[in-house]
């Protein structure tokens, strides 16, 4: 009886142990992975190693320069050696993550007969035009024609003429012709050519200003800060709005042919800038829109004046009424044409030296420009009001075009001494200015896209429970690929492709960074996590743990008994 009872007890105990062990096994082997799987967030794979490589940015910018020696600049011995190519490298380290290298490939050759004929023109502008008809330089490259000192193309004190396309005329110094070797000649020319390159291609200050997103530089000179604050940041599109402000419709009935003016004057510039950004244009007329400031009457010139201090307060009251296209988030450039009312005409803007401003216009960085157009000269005081006035759009658009150039970042920095710049032509933009803009925009896009992607990767790494969808991973991968291609094209010197890839990179990176699904609202401090899981799992785990402990203690006891039996 007793044996049967003890056997029964043992079998029951065995069954109990088996049950506890199997439950524990199921919990550990099935339950824990299941819980892990169902509570983890979906995170698609990101190319983190490539992103980290990109974070360490080593940019190389290559520019091709062709230096053509006209007749009379080289001696016959030098001419024999002249077709040669030189490569010059300049290295700059901006900070520990960013390094720049500028590579200039300079090809020297002598001028062809057709080029000599073109250089025989009476003025530099005509020479520039006929040189352009001979050959078209690709985007990002330059041609510098070296002309003899006796040439009459340039005035006396000027040594360099920068044309409207991608050519420059450089006058050689007198003593450089006789008895010098080619190396000395090239060495003499080198600083001048460097200067030309800095004006027409890229200079270190421009490129470092374009990198401002990535590197917070200590402020340099005041001009560079003003330049960087004035121009809009690189964006895939811009909106331009032309507004006509008529505060006095009872006196003036204004007519402006804005559509024609935009087609003729502004559209060529925007078409030329098409590789850089898209532009959308609109126009409006606002009636009874006053300036927020009262102009003062200046008896010496019997005109009303706005001095430079009050200009800053003009914009805000007007801006509230301007409106904008609600559909896009592109930056808006506003150009306002203000026709003063009959009681406050004529109205002139004075600068801080109390001088009248010839253009009668001012602009605000990253906002737009305002021009005051006086119409009191168009009608006699006894005319019947309201008078019809046709606005001279050429004059107005001349001012707006200049302001547009400044706001878009086409730098009109002061030329170095001895340089003569050609006026920028009917499109409002010289080819080399476009090249400059493309260089700085490409570098800016690459820097911004790199920063965006690296900070996105860092953010996703830090916050473990943001869901990374497949489309975000796709955007990130395409941004990384475009960035790598853009850097490669910059190295090769293909400026057009580099800009295109950099634009694609920046659009993909912005789309990935600003994706609405990347919002982390799942901030769980550790104590909250414990508070959620303990009531769920603790009651279940306590019996299992206790039974396991019991099994272990029983096994140990049995072993001890066996030991005792042995002895």
């Amino acid at each position, binding site marked *: 009886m007793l044996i049967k009872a003890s056997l029964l007890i043992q079998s029951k105990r065995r069954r109990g142990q088996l049950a506890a062990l199997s439950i524990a096994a199921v919990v550990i082997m099935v339950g824990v992975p299941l819980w892990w799987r169902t509570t983890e967030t979906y995170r698609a794979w990101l190319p983190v190693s490539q992103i980290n490589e990109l974070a360490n940015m080593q940019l190389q910018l290559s520019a091709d320069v062709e230096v053509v020696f006209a007749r009379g600049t080289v001696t016959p011995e030098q001419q024999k050696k002249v077709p040669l190519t030189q490569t010059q490298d300049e290295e700059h380290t901006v900070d520990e993550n960013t390094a720049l290298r500028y590579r200039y490939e300079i090809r020297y050759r002598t001028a062809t007969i057709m080029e000599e004929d073109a250089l025989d023109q009476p003025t530099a502008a005509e020479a520039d035009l006929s040189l352009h008809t001979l050959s078209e330089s690709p985007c990002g490259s330059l041609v510098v024609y070296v002309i003899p000192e006796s040439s009459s193309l340039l005035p006396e004190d000027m040594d360099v003429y920068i044309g409207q396309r991608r050519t420059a005329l450089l006058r050689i110094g007198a003593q450089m012709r006789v008895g010098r070797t080619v190396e000395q000649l090239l060495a003499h020319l080198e600083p001048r050519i460097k200067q030309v390159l800095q004006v027409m291609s890229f200079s270190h200050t421009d490129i470092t200003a374009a990198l401002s*997103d990535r590197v917070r530089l200590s402020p340099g000179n*005041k001009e560079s*800060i*003003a330049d960087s*604050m*004035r121009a809009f*940041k690189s964006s895939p599109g811009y909106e331009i709005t032309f507004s006509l402000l008529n505060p006095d419709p009872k006196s003036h009935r204004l007519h402006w042919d804005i559509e*024609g*003016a935009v*087609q*003729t004057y502004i559209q060529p510039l925007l078409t030329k800038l098409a590789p850089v950004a898209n532009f959308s244009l609109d126009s409006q007329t606002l009636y009874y829109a006053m300036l927020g400031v009262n102009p003062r009457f200046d008896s010496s010139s019997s005109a009303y004046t706005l001095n*430079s201090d009050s200009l*800053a*307060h003009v*914009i*805000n009251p007007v801006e*509230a009424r301007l409106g*904008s*296209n*609600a*559909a896009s*988030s592109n*930056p808006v450039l506003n150009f306002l044409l203000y026709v003063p009312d009959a009681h406050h005409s004529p109205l002139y803007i004075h*600068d*801080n030296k109390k001088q009248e*401003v010839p*253009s009668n*216009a*001012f602009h*605000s*960085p*990253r*906002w737009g*420009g305002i*021009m005051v157009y006086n119409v009191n000269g168009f009608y006699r005081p006894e005319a019947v009001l309201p008078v019809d006035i046709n606005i001279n759009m*050429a*004059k107005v658009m*001349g*001012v707006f*075009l*200049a*302001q547009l*150039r*400044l706001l878009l970042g086409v730098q*009109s920095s002061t030329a170095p001494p001895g340089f003569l710049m050609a*006026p920028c032509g*009917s499109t*409002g933009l010289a080819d080399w200015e476009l090249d400059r803009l493309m260089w700085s925009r490409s570098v800016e896009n690459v820097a911004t896209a790199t920063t965006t992607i690296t*900070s996105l990767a860092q*953010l996703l790494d830090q*916050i473990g429970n943001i869901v990374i969808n497949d489309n975000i991973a796709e955007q990130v991968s395409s941004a990384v690929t475009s960035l790598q291609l853009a850097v490669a094209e910059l190295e090769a010197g293909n400026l057009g492709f580099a800009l295109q890839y950099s634009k694609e990179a920046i659009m993909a990176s912005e789309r990935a*960074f*600003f994706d*609405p699904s*990347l*919002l*982390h*609202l799942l*901030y769980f*401090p550790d104590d909250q996590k414990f508070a959620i899981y303990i009531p769920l799992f603790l009651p279940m785990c306590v019996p299992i743990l206790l039974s396991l402990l019991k099994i272990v203690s029983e096994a140990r006891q049995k072993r001890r008994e066996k030991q005792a039996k042995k002895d």
Partner: protein
Amino acid sequence: MKILTFFSLFSTFLSANSINVEENAGQFFSSGHTNNWAVLVCTSRFWFNYRHVANTLSVYRSVKRLGIPDSHIVLMLADDMACNHRNPKPATVFSHKNMELNVYGDDVEVDYRGYEVTVENFLRVLTGRLPPSTPRSKRLLSDDRSNILIYLTGHGGNGFLKFQDSEEISNVELADAFEQMWQKRRYNELLFIIDTCQGASMYERFYSPNLMALASSQVGEDSLSHQPDLAIGVHLMDRYTFYLLEFLEDIHPASKANMKDLFKVCPKSQCVSTPGHRTDLFLRDPGSALITDFFGSVRKVEITMETINLTDLIKEAEQNPMNEKPQKVTYSYVDQLPVSEIIHQKPKQKDWHPPDGFILGLWTLILLVFFKTYGIKHLKHIF
């Protein structure tokens, strides 16, 4: 001798003048911003939280008066006090008792209203992660040269701020949102003002550069409300914002008051709580930051020196051939109400439920099993 003194006076006058010009140029560059934005948030609903809406609207009013346009202000009000049923004077929100100052006015543009004011929307506005269909007025389109003013008010505690009585935002989330804004260079400088209980806890965790923060009370202190209006029946404003509004009413767009004056607003004698501020992350000296750098919108201007000489004449637009009339596209409104559904009263597709007999059958089964196991004799206890 006389000529010498005259000459020296003249030269000092000239140098003083040039210093003045230099100073103006210096002002241009000292702040480094070209535009201003404001994000003003009231997080509480219900009629007895009237004062929070009045707080936000009075800051809105000051900011607009000093020049920031509506297109650059994101105003989030969690409840509509002006048109609340209990408002004895509808379409008004007063900030001073005896109904002296109506801060609602007729020119208020609320961007996020009512239930749209959530933690998620607030963080989306700050970080820019809005769905593509969001209109421009609901976005914070700032760039790296924008100074942003962020004003929060409502009920808060140590490390959190309550939104809409159902959720909260923690100071860690707020600090992370600001860091994301910094990473994307969405601000140049940011001024953060919070008027809640234990407000100082909300700026404890900031770690991004160029942030300045002000709070109405320290950790462990409550921010108190100012005065009740007996006709309206609720407290109209909180103390800190009341004295802030009084301070701002003296500021005009050309004023030169700086941040140090702002720190002195509402000392303990007036506010009962101790306002706090944090400037260690701000790179400039607070004394050089003007009030109008954040609350107003003083534009920088430059005179346009160059013009372009345009000589082409405007070409006439081409005439359309007369036989090709432009096609008229007729537009029509989308159905605003599903009228056909309402009229015909077809039963709508409801969610699937198990058939009715199923529940009965289930219970019968359970009872049968029970009786089988425990014996039929218990049946008499049921029936």
